[in-house]
């Protein structure tokens, strides 16, 4: 089989064993890699109902047939597991040399189960894997630990690791690489910490096992050229995703004060032009010629890598209008190994809970010093409040009780990323149906939505969300490469199907790939149902705030979502996906997609609709 290695590195930390195992060819062909492969492995090998922070959970690092190849922005891998934040399927992608090295080492994924007795690290050198002590790294922040590892394993080694937040099982701890790359929003870092796995180091020197290497190189070279020729290229290289601050403000979708508003009076203090004034350099993932990591000098004189999401969530959403200070909060999150989006949502929750008298402590909007301290308290679970917030907003609200769930801006337990949806039903649907909870990566539909009819609840919105989910969440997460060349600079999608054929020799059609994407989505939904032991469509609803409390500022003041119309939109989404009115895939859909192996379990749990 070309294009894949057909092997997993299976690591059991309880037994202290690591071995290479083959996996079925059918999984590669029909689930591809990344998210698809991870979901298939979890279904097959993780015991149903496993404790997300227990030894039975599987932590998976997966690449795909396009990962690491000489084509734009291919240095990505997916990290997946059952999420300790949501209780369902969780994943994220991360740009890292580890992605390229994993392919060169000859594996399509690393699967980690069990729990080490003492802090450990996994070191993979081609086909050789060792589980080594890591007590000397435990407790170090991600930057310090990675620098130590690079001294030992070389400047170009692939390193994935957790910080103190992952060690302390903060439920939105992520996996970090290269001092600013972060992946696995729904607590993948906490899963790694629960296994006492501080770091994974990979050094691979083998080849990619491609069907037609020359054709891949030819296509990749043309694609790089097209990226650079894009009309938006020079501005992208100036601001990257930071241009979105102005864009979101203009369109009244910039979250402010815990998503109470969609505009922020201090937006000029945190926008892309302000970032250009502070910018020191630019970083990117391997194989990227449109590097998006804008590195600025923060208010404490340190370097911090910014993008839109972390700036909006740790800026406008907590009422902070000074980018140099936002950059400090962002840097601390990266060093502790925290997801900046959930962190911003959680800090905003705390500020609002304080304002409403639900917690005793006074936390003012925009209070940089207090938020700075609070990040440490969360990451280290130092104080009662820090420990509460380390559980994420849904659990924190459940513990606080009263009306506090109103202030938990989350879907399925994952905090909403940085687009306010009071006047964007399509984007609200994208959050509601994202396969990991309220994340934007699967269907960033808002740009299309504001350009068409943003107030419509028509079925065209459900169609568009699914189209984007297929390509962004289904395919790019399974290829595995970065979607930015396509979504930001308009690289022709046909490149990817040609590259896939050249890499694998399999004559995939778009029909095949969309089927594959639908298969992955349905399997992920099946995993959710299995792990939660049932399903209810309320799990696919956006936060109540967007329906109940209209925005009060800006040109769209007074806007809010209509709950009955939104339910109709969700119905349309389910129907297009071939899921029933509860949001459960129909038996016929599962069988048509080749997911017959899930039918018995799901039928027993929820009774499948024909």
């Amino acid at each position, binding site marked *: 089989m070309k294009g894949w290695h057909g092997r997993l590195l299976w690591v059991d930390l309880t037994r202290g064993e690591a071995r290479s195992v083959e996996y079925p060819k059918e999984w590669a*062909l029909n689930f591809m890699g990344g998210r698809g492969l991870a979901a298939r492995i979890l279904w097959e090998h993780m015991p149903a109902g496993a404790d997300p922070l227990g030894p039975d959970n599987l932590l998976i690092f997966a690449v795909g047939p396009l990962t690491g190849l000489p084509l734009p922005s291919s240095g990505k891998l997916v990290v997946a597991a059952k999420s300790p934040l949501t209780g369902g399927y969780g994943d994220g992608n991360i740009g890292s040399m580890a992605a390229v090295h994993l392919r060169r080492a000859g594996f399509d994924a690393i699967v980690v189960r069990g729990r080490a007795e003492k802090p450990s690290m996994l070191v993979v050198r081609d086909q050789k894997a060792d589980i080594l002590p890591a007590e000397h790294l435990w407790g170090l922040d991600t930057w310090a630990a990675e620098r130590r590892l690079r001294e030992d394993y070389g400047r170009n080694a692939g390193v994935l690791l957790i910080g103190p937040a992952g060690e302390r099982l903060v439920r939105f701890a992520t996996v970090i690489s290269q001092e600013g790359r972060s992946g696995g929003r729904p607590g993948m870092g906490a899963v790694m910490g629960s296994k006492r796995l501080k770091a994974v180091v990979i050094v691979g020197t083998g080849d990619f096992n491609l069907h037609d290497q020359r054709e891949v190189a030819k296509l990749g070279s043309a694609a790089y050229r097209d990226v650079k020729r894009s*009309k*938006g290229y*020079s*501005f*992208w290289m100036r*601001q990257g*995703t930071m*241009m*979105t601050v*102005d*864009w979101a403000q*203009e*369109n*009244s979708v910039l979250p402010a004060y815990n998503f109470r508003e969609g505009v922020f009076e201090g937006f000029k203090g945190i926008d892309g032009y302000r970032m250009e004034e502070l910018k020191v350099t630019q970083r990117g993932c391997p194989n990227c010629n449109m590097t998006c990591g804008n590195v600025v000098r923060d208010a404490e004189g340190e370097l911090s890598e910014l993008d839109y999401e972390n700036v909006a969530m740790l800026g406008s959403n907590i009422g902070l209008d000074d980018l140099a200070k936002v950059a400090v909060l962002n840097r601390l999150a990266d060093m502790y190994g925290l997801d900046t989006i959930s962190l911003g949502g959680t800090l905003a929750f705390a500020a609002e809970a304080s304002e409403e008298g639900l917690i005793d402590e006074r936390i003012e909007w925009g209070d940089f010093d207090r938020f700075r301290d609070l990040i440490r308290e969360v990451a280290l679970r130092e104080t009662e409040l820090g420990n509460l917030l380390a559980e994420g907003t849904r659990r924190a609200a459940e513990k606080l009780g009263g009306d506090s769930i109103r202030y938990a801006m989350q879907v399925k337990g994952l905090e909403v990323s940085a687009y306010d949806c009071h006047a964007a039903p399509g984007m609200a649907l994208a959050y509601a149906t994202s396969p990991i909870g309220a994340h*934007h990566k699967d*269907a*960033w*539909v*808002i*740009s*299309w939505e*504001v*350009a068409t*009819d*943003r107030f419509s609840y028509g079925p065209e919105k459900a*169609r*568009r969300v*699914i*189209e*984007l989910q*297929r*390509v*962004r969440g289904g395919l790019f997460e399974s290829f595995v490469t970065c*979607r930015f060349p*396509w*979504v*930001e600079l308009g690289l022709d*999608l046909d490149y990817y199907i040609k590259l896939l054929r050249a890499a694998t020799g*399999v004559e*995939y059609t*778009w*029909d*095949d790939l*969309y*089927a*594959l*994407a*639908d*298969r992955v989505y*349905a399997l992920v939904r099946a995993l959710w149902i299995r792990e939660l032991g049932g399903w209810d469509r309320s799990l696919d609803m956006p936060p109540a705030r967007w329906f109940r409390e209209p925005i009060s500022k800006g*040109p*769209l003041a007074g806007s809010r979502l209509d709950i009955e119309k939104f339910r109709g939109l969700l119905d349309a989404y389910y129907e*297009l*996906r*071939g899921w029933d009115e509860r949001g459960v895939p129909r038996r016929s*859909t599962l069988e*048509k*997609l*080749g997911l017959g192996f899930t039918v018995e379990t799901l039928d027993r749990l929820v009774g499948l609709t024909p």
Partner: protein
Amino acid sequence: MGRVRVRYLGYLAEYAGGREVEVEVGESGARLIEVVRLPPDVSPDDLVFLVNGRPAKPGDRVRPGDTVSVMPHISGGAPAPSYIPVAAPARATA
């Protein structure tokens, strides 16, 4: 006579020569597309337009005192990957 303020976001500001310009229009106003300056190879279909912060179309009328915002699509707003319209789950072959 009066002025319409035009704001350019993203790379459009590089082309227009500034982030914000003012354009003279008659009392009866003008069509939105007439007051914006776009690169020759950019179709209005590829852009987002607002008038006074509310969604607008290229053919809409703008009047003195209005603010027009014009911006590119970002992050997934590119033309739909419409190789297969979504009508039902795709078939199971690979």
